[in-house]
């Protein structure tokens, strides 16, 4: 709990440090470096492609993703699986549904899971972390009490391994898509809370805060107009990285049988989980293996896109690397 806590705090402090010696503001500078970063470019392109597919997927899907066409195939080929062919580029799954169409349509659900769960973690976590940081830095004695209570709660969540936490939430709430989103989101709450709190504390003693205080600016205004916007750097980085984690963790929940039970609604994590029992990679283009490989590649590439962009942002915001 504590080593992790300290690490998050240090991370927050590092990325939030702000010196305006160069003249340009931190954000302008960071954006400039982000634009020249190859990592950011690749990451952003992958994400853009993923979002475009999620939006237009249902329209460009060549087949109905829920239509089963194996009935006649079984007798012709004596096998349920059908490999890639001209009318089904990625073959059919075990129920004779077009893989490509399921992937294209499924991107939307996967994006939804990633975004909604990250928003849950971000919103609740940032609220706890923001209140806690502001209370500790500007709230005097009673503020310290508020901070202690909130942070003890966060520590409790941090003391449980993330998947176990997600599994128990999913078990309590029953199987559904919203369960997965909430379970994955709750796991992210303590991380966001710790980061924002740490980065606000790092800002609290900055010269501009002292100046504002000396000028008699109200505390609420200092927090909302000065400290908070300047503390958001690490939180934004974490949001990008959390999107990657959310998609992977949702797939893990599906694998443990806690995912969305409605399999007619394609979602990459569920598709991968269902393909598990057919997976025999003698040949990764084998009809049955393809069923697992396609959604897995989708998840990996998407997660990679978010990770690359997040890492590039972290580097861009790192004051030590400023030229």
């Amino acid at each position, binding site marked *: *709990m*504590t*080593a*992790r806590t*300290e*690490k998050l705090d240090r991370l927050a402090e590092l990325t939030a440090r702000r010196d305006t010696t160069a003249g340009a503001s931190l954000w302008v500078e960071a954006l400039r470096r982000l634009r020249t970063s190859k990592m950011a470019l690749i990451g952003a392109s992958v994400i853009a492609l993923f979002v475009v597919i999620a939006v237009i997927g249902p329209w460009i899907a060549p087949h109905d993703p829920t239509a089963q066409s194996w009935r006649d195939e079984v007798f012709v080929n004596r096998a349920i699986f059908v490999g890639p062919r001209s009318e089904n580029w990625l073959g059919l799954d075990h129920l004779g549904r077009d893989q490509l169409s399921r992937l294209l349509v499924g991107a939307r659900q996967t994006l939804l899971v990633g975004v909604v769960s990250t928003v849950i973690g971000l919103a609740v976590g940032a609220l706890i972390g923001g209140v806690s940081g502001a209370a500790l830095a500007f709230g005097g004695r009673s503020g310290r009490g508020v901070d202690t209570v909130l942070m*003890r*709660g966060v*520590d*409790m969540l941090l*003391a*449980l*391994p*993330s*998947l*176990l936490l997600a*599994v*128990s939430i999913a*078990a*309590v709430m*029953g199987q559904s898509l919203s369960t997965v989103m909430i379970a994955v989101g709750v796991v992210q709450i303590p991380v966001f809370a710790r980061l924002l709190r740490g980065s606000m504390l790092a800002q609290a003693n900055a010269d501009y805060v002292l100046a504002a205080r000396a000028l008699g600016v109200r505390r609420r205004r200092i927090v909302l107009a000065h400290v908070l916007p300047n503390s958001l750097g690490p939180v934004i980085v974490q949001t990008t990285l959390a999107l*990657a984690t959310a998609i*992977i963790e949702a*797939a*893990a929940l599906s*694998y*443990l049988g806690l995912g969305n039970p409605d399999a007619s609604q394609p979602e990459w994590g569920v598709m*991968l989980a269902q393909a*598990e029992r057919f*997976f*025999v*990679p*003698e040949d990764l283009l084998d009809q049955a293996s393809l069923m*697992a490989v396609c959604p*897995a590649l989708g*998840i*990996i590439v998407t*997660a*990679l896109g978010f*990770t*690359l962009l997040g*890492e590039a942002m972290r580097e861009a915001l790192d004051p030590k690397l400023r030229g």
Partner: protein
Amino acid sequence: MLRLIVRRLLQLIPTLLGLTVLLFLWIHRLPGGPASALLGERATEADRRQIEAALGLDEPLWVQYGRWIERLARLDLGTSTQTSRPVWEEFTQRFPATVELALTAMLIAVVVGIPLGYFAARRRGSWLDAGAVSGSLIGVCIPVFFFALILKAVFAVNLGWLPSTGRQSTGIDATEITGFYVLDGLLTGEWDASWDAVRHLVLPGVALASIPLAVIVRITRASVLEVLTEDYVRTAESKGLKQRTVRGRHVLRNALLPVVTTIGLLTGSLLSGAVLTESVFAFGGIGRFIAEGIDARDYPTLMGFILLIALLYVLINLMVDVAYSLIDPRVRVN
């Protein structure tokens, strides 16, 4: 040092107490209940009530919580409703398997990760560096269970080099002393049993190592890069110290500080990953038992196992902090 440890242990008490409340309420909100899980769907209301009374589940929640805490204070975790055996026994029986697996994974991650990160940093921009960085980025993006499935399918099912499930081959009748099969074989001199256990650990170990390995490579690399630019390294070099001394004593030792912390942080991901890896390889550890416990609404087992894991997790972090202050004297001053 001792004062630090004692203070930190005392700080743990409120957090862990809060956790017991949270855990208790949480677990008792699971839909269904142990009685229905035990009896099946066709149980009569009377049967259900009788079992609930026997398990003490008919009393108000706060009374039940009080009972549980009282028993916890006597180090009694209760009895599993699945197997009717003490939760503590169930835990200690499965725990060695998970520890063996986690240690294997951590060993792989450290032994491969630290040198890889170190050499990637020393030859910054080389193909080795590029490979290590991109490999570690991909490593964290592969779902653990998918990686485990690929390993199992390729090396166990397809090539047949290694066993695909379990901790031990059938037919090997090893004496059990500690429950750590590799160690047991060494202790009794049954080398075959030890070797067999090692072979069973390779694939799940590699699968579980994927995330810690990726993280350790990146942290080591970043940290070595940072230390290489420090003044004291330049001083040491210009003093004409042997390169081996500079690297070993000045660069590596200082660069390993953040790596030590990270190793502690990774225990969480190891325990999470173990649940998945144990499922893929039918490895009889605590991860699988928890998954089964949820199905059976086995309240005592769930609460006991999760509490023990949290306690363990917190203690590991404490040990990391102590180790950290042993390597870095500056921490002690604060």
